[in-house]
């Protein structure tokens, strides 16, 4: 069964460093999403992406964050100058269409900022 894959599973970085989280969405899906989940808290929407541009973004998704689809398969989330509070699980998701927009999630990348 097709699945969304995320790498790495765990990323440790120093405060102030840049990180890139990588995702390979399901191949025929057109909509891509990033979420984060701080330990023990709710899953928070960051951004949705379609047709090589951002469709929607939340208040969390500020200038520190950027997304890119550098080729036909990868979807990346870049966090510039990481802060301690960026430590969280980051989930990538994809959906085939926008209605219905059933999302398939990856297993997540645990980001630890020291």
């Amino acid at each position, binding site marked *: 069964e097709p699945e*969304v894959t995320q790498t790495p599973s765990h990323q440790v970085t120093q405060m102030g460093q840049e990180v890139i989280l990588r995702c390979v969405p399901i191949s025929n899906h057109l*909509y891509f*999403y990033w*979420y984060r989940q701080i330990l023990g*808290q*709710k*899953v*928070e*929407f960051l951004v*949705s992406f*379609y047709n090589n541009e951002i*469709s*929607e973004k*939340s208040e969390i998704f500020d200038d520190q964050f950027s997304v890119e689809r550098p080729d036909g398969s990868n979807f990346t989330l870049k966090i510039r100058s990481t802060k301690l509070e960026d430590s969280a699980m980051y*989930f990538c*998701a994809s959906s085939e269409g*926008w*209605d*219905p*927009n*059933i*999302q*398939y*999630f*990856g*297993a*997540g990348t645990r980001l630890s900022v020291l």
Partner: protein
Amino acid sequence: SQQGEEDPQALSIQEGENATMNCSYKTSINNLQWYRQNSGRGLVHLILIRSNEREKHSGRLRVTLDTSKKSSSLLITASRAADTASYFCATAHNFNKFYFGSGTKLNVKP
């Protein structure tokens, strides 16, 4: 906040019993979805109900939606130990912006 909120936050039942979780939200939606998350894993889609639907079934799952009260419920019948997980409602706004609730942590005791 537009986010859905589930209650209860935690639910512990015996295998074979039914589990009911509720979700409330604040603004108009296109649809509402329920997802399940096993500890430390990604979310898995369970069921979607559109804003013009009132009830939907899928296997042992039954979802209701009351748009006048801005609330939904998820019923899992004849629960099993394998149903132990966190359950989240997600509301879709403009189809591409989603808000997840805080989740209900369900523990089904064998």
